[in-house]
Each structure stands twice: as structure tokens, then as C-alpha cells.
């Protein structure tokens, strides 16, 4: 044993320096996760990501989490003033599988961000007047959705029915929310197994991990697991085709993404929309033009699709991780789906997509486009 230790020490001395990893993922006993990445940047992105385990979303509570996002984001008096007067900002976003609050701040405001997270994780109560006001905003927000967002909503609903309903909500649904219902939903999504704190920027890894862990260590779990959405099949509209996907870490999902990216060269003004999910998701391939051309003429043995698709898929992954906010979001939302899903695994999956797997995916896409 002593000999082995000596060998390791000799090896360390021989290498001349000891370099610390720039990332640390900590899974707490109660299921909460803290992820920190240290990188050189003028600002840090600190994100609180709240999953949906244990929450049943139906047409009756359509958009309630989104409503909560609006309400909670403005719930701390003078918080925005404190951030914005010193060059920071608070953002919030709600998706089907998570809600995300982001503090994008100069490093000296990291404690303010952690203070915000601490307050957000407490029980929340909102009056009817605020619910009414923000419901109106949600109605207006819905009217501003882009054509690709509308297309996505249409396709998700067609594939998954009520389980695929959008997270935006409508004025009609959210204005009916009762304060107690919102308090209950907030309690569910702030259970420990739904909470991830993810950060990237000029951050001391150990200090941040300790501070963030202390905010979530006392949270109780609801022991709920994520249920799988059931897909009715693939769907095609005028502007896009939607393909039901398996979990993000599956090989078939990687192959489908490579195929979709590869096929973009056959479509005018193309877009590919993909939301990482661990419980059944959708990949959308569409055109921002008037309609998506039917029968793209793509041949599944076309090597160009293979190379182009692989290159674009890897670039997509890189682009997600390029900025502090992108990295904190991508790492955090993947961890929210499952602590086992890491960007590194997705990269391997893209790199390992072989020609046979891709052919199957291209045939599926061509079928959907027919």
C-alpha cells in the first residue's frame, strides 16, 4: 500500500501540476442535484430547475406551472432592482418537463442569486388579483407564439394527446386557478427529487457546491417517478413533420436527430426542434416557408445526409454548451430528467450513429414526409 502511494505521489510530481476538474455534479441523499462548472466568463449563470415528478397535468390545470413561473419570478420585493442596478438579470422559462429560473449575474452577485433560490424554494401563496393579472399576460404571450412554436404545439398534442399539452396555457385555463391549487403545485415541484441547481461561470466549485447544497438538503422527496408519455404515432402538418422519440440517451434518438439535421439541406428555410426528454418526446423537422415540401427526393443511402447530419448534430451539441447560460441550462435540464444523462453521453451517441441506424431513421422521416 505504501509502495502504491509512493508511486502515485511520484506520478503526480512527475506530471508537475495538479489540475482540478472544471465540473462537479453532486447528487444529494434526498435526490436533489447540484451541478457547477467553472469557466472563464464575465458573468455567471445560476439556474434553478424544477421538474414535474408527482404532478399530473391535465387540461384542467393547463398552464398553471407557467402562471406560477410568472408569479414567483416577481415575488421577492426589490430583487430585480438589486440585480439589474448592478448589471445582472433574472429570467424564467417553463417547458413541458421543467421550469427554469436563471440569474445571469456578475460574479459578485452570486450570493444574491443563491438568496433568490432560497426564497423561491419556500412555500408560495398568491392572491386572486395577481392570478388575474398574470393570466392576462399568459393570454397575450400565447398570441405572440411564433409559427414554429404553434406548429410544435399542434404536433405534440396530435402525438401525445393531453399528455403532450403545451406548458404555455391559455387565459381561459389559468384565470380559473385557485390560490390553494397553485400552492399545492409549487409544493410538488419543489420536492427534493424535482430540484436541480446548475451553474456555470467564474465560480469557486467547492464553495458554490456547499452553499447550493445547504439550500436543498432539507427538502423532502415525494418519491414520485416520471411517467412515460404514450405516443399515438408520427404526425405531419403543412409546415412540419413530428416524430415521436424515445428517451434522449437512446441510440435511435441520436440517429433520428442526425437524419433530421442531414435532411435540412433538402428543405427550404428549414428548422429542427428537439426538446430533450426522458419520457417520450418529439423531433420536429419543418420549413419556415409556406409549407414543407412533400417527397424531398432524399435517398437513404445518400452519404451526404450522413456526414452533414452528424456534423450538424455535433455542432448543435457544441452550440448548447458554448456560453455559461447554455451550459448551465443544458447540463441542468438533462440532470433534471435523470442524473445519469450527461452531454458527454449524447456526444458519444452522435459519434456512434452508424450507417445502418441512420438508414432506418431516414426511411422513417421520408415516410412521414410522404
Amino acid at each position, binding site marked *: 500500500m505504501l509502495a502504491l502511494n509512493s508511486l502515485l505521489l511520484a506520478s503526480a510530481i512527475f506530471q508537475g501540476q495538479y489540475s482540478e476538474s472544471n465540473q462537479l455534479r453532486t447528487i444529494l441523499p434526498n435526490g436533489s442535484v447540484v451541478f457547477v462548472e467553472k469557466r472563464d466568463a*464575465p458573468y455567471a449563470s445560476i439556474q434553478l430547475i424544477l421538474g414535474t415528478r408527482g404532478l399530473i397535468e391535465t387540461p384542467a390545470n393547463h398552464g398553471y406551472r407557467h402562471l406560477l413561473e410568472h408569479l414567483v419570478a416577481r415575488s421577492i420585493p426589490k430583487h*430585480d*432592482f438589486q440585480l*439589474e*442596478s448592478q448589471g445582472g*438579470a433574472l429570467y424564467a422559462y417553463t417547458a413541458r418537463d421543467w421550469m427554469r429560473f436563471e440569474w445571469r449575474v456578475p460574479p459578485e452577485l452570486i450570493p444574491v442569486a443563491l438568496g433568490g433560490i432560497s426564497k423561491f424554494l419556500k412555500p408560495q401563496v398568491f392572491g386572486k388579483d395577481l392570478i388575474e393579472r398574470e393570466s392576462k399576460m399568459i393570454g397575450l404571450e400565447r398570441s405572440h407564439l411564433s409559427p414554429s412554436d404553434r406548429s410544435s404545439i399542434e404536433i405534440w398534442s396530435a402525438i401525445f394527446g393531453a399528455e403532450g399539452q403545451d406548458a404555455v396555457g391559455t387565459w381561459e385555463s389559468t384565470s380559473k386557478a385557485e390560490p390553494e391549487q397553485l400552492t399545492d403545485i409549487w409544493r410538488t415541484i419543489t420536492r427534493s427529487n424535482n430540484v436541480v441547481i446548475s451553474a456555470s461561470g467564474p465560480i469557486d466549485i467547492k464553495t458554490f457546491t456547499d452553499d447550493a447544497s445547504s439550500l436543498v438538503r432539507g427538502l423532502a422527496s415525494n418519491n414520485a417517478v416520471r411517467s412515460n408519455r404514450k405516443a399515438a404515432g408520427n404526425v405531419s402538418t403543412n409546415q412540419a413533420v413530428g416524430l415521436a422519440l424515445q428517451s434522449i440517451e437512446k441510440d435511435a434518438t441520436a440517429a433520428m436527430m442526425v437524419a433530421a439535421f442531414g435532411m435540412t439541406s433538402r428543405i427550404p428555410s428549414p428548422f429542427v426542434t428537439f426538446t430533450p426528454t426522458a419520457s417520450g418526446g418529439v423531433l420536429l423537422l419543418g420549413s419556415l416557408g409556406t409549407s414543407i415540401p412533400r417527397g424531398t427526393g432524399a435517398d437513404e443511402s445518400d452519404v451526404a445526409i450522413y456526414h*452533414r447530419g452528424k456534423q450538424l448534430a455535433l455542432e448543435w451539441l457544441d*452550440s448548447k454548451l458554448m456560453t455559461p447560460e447554455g451550459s448551465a441550462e443544458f447540463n441542468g435540464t438533462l440532470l433534471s430528467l435523470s442524473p445519469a444523462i450527461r452531454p458527454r453521453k449524447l456526444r458519444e451517441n452522435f459519434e456512434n450513429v452508424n450507417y445502418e441506424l441512420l438508414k432506418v431513421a431516414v426511411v422513417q422521416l421520408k415516410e412521414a414526409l410522404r
Partner: protein
Amino acid sequence: MIAALVILSQQPVLPALWEFPTEKAERTHFEIVVKLPRMEGRLRRAVSAAGHLAVYQFSSLPLRVGEGGPALHYSETADFLRFSLTTTAQRQKAALRTLAELLTQPNLPIEVELTKEGGYRADRSSTANNGYLDNQQLKDAWRFAVNSSTVSVGVSGQFAPGAMETDWKGFQFEWPLPPNFPPSIPASVVPLNEVKEISSFKLSMSPALTTRAELAKVLVAANVMAGGKECLAWRVFREEAPLAYQFGAKLKREGGWWVLELEAETKDAEGWDVAKASLAKHIAALSKEDLDVAIGNLKAQLITGVSPLGIEGIGSGNIVANAADRLYLRTIWKATTGMDWSEYNIYSDARQVSVNEIKALLEQWLKGD
């Protein structure tokens, strides 16, 4: 002596390229602005159609320069065409070359159909139209609008000073000189109608902008009005009299003037007058705190690289909320005034602005001019 003159006259005439090297930038941004000569009617429509279709037909562009998605954004105002491209340091040379190729050798369609609604189509598919433009007319219009004297290129990112300029000069593209006369495309003014489900309200004013300090003051005013969640527009449109989910402040160049604009989009057309009255009250009661938060937001945009909400609300050309828009403004500013500014000296000027100065500017903005 004669030989030297001959060599000089053979030097290609290149459009201006301005470098704005930025430390720690993770991306390289290109902003190409084309200052449009005065034109109207079908000629203007021909330029617009050529611009859109040239970009559209460059379908392989994302692959050559991008990040896995559409990397080139095209937009236009009455005064400018704008090509905005973001890429990585590794691809910046390829991106610059591609942009130069797009501008000098656009792949224009054989024919464009002008629709009755003021748009265009690349095929003969509508039953009622406003005539056609052939390939030569499109080429002539493009040359009239896009030539060595109308194009300016701004580039920011991590590169050695002079590196981009060397690349730019090294490309063997032939930039057309400005033609003496506009092409003979028959004039027929057709209104460009936009069909919108959502109403849009605008408050516009034309600030006098001749110095960097005046620019800084306008940027502070824009942030007081529409930067972040403590600005006047957020308080009024989102909280007191909920009216507009989306709003934004813009500074743009139009008809030879600088125009400062607040735009709010809503599906509730009523309520605008109430909102305006509410804005007037807030302006009258403007405080040092309002100014502090606006200057903090400006710092976020210029120095920290954070884009607060609101200021990036609507459309393109949104002041300085992201690196591309900042470069766009900087490029237009230099193209029109001949002066330069940097993030740090604008921020420094902004900190000298007083509450009363901003109040006067906002009052004028609310009234319009």
C-alpha cells in the same frame, strides 16, 4: 510616375470593413449594412425581393459557416439592408468570404412575381399579381443598391487587429462601382401592406445625435423606458394596466434621421391611451433609482454581456442588447457619423447623465415629434 498611377487605378475598390476586436468573445459577429440609395416603387421592391431570395437560395450557408442552425439573419428597413451573421473563430474567414460572395454574386431567380399584397413569389402561382421582374431587372436593382460605396462591414470577436482586414482584401471578388443612374425599372408604387393579427403601438422621436455623449443619453433613456423588469414600460404594460406582453425600445436610422422608438404589441387595442397616461405619470415622478437601474441594465448589455428583458423585445436592430445588435449600431454609427465608440466609453458617458436630462428626453419621446 505613370506606371504607379496605372497600378493605383487597378486597385479593387472594396467596401469599408471595420474591426472591433473584443476580448473573451466566444463568437464572431458580422454585421453588414447596406445604405440604400433613394429609391421607390418597383425598384425598391426589386431590391427587397433580391435580398430575401438571395439569402433564401443560400441554403447551404448554415453548413458552411454556422452552428447547426440558420446562422444568417436578413432584415431591412427603409434605409438599410442588414445581414447579420454569428459564427465561431475557426469559421470566421469562411463566413466573411461567404458573405462577400453572397453580396457580389447573388444567385437570383429567373423571374419574380410581385403579388397584389406588396410581396413577391418565386413562382407564377397567384391568380392576381402586380407584374413580374426578370433576372436582369433583379440584377440591375441589386447592383444599384449593393456596391462598393453602399456596403459597410463591422466585425467583432477574438482576432488580431488587422487580421480580418487582410482576409477582406485577399478575397478576389469584384465589387461593382455605383452605377450613374438607377436601372430602368418602371415605377409603380404599390403599398407594402403587412397583415398582422396583433396591433402594434409605437412612440417615436428623432433625437439629435451627433456626439457620443448624446448617444449614451439616448441609450439610458431607452433603458429607463424599456430595459429589464423595473423599467417604466414593464410597470405599465405588464403590471399596472396589463396590455402588452411584448415591448421593446429601438434606435434606428430612418429617412436620414435617428429614430428612437418604443413599440408595444398587443391584441387588446383598447387601453393604449390609459397606458400612455400612466407612462406620463411615471416620467413625471422619475427618480434616481430609476436612473440607477437603467444604467445597471446598460452595464449588463455593454460590459457584462447580459441582455435584460424588454430591450430585446421586438424585431431586429434592438439597440445594444446583444453583441450582434451592438455591432450593428456601431457599424451604422460609424457609417453615418464617421465616429467610433466603445462599450466602456459609452458606459462612462452614461454615468454622467442626470435625472432631469432623461426626464426631458422621455417627455419628448412620449409626445412624439
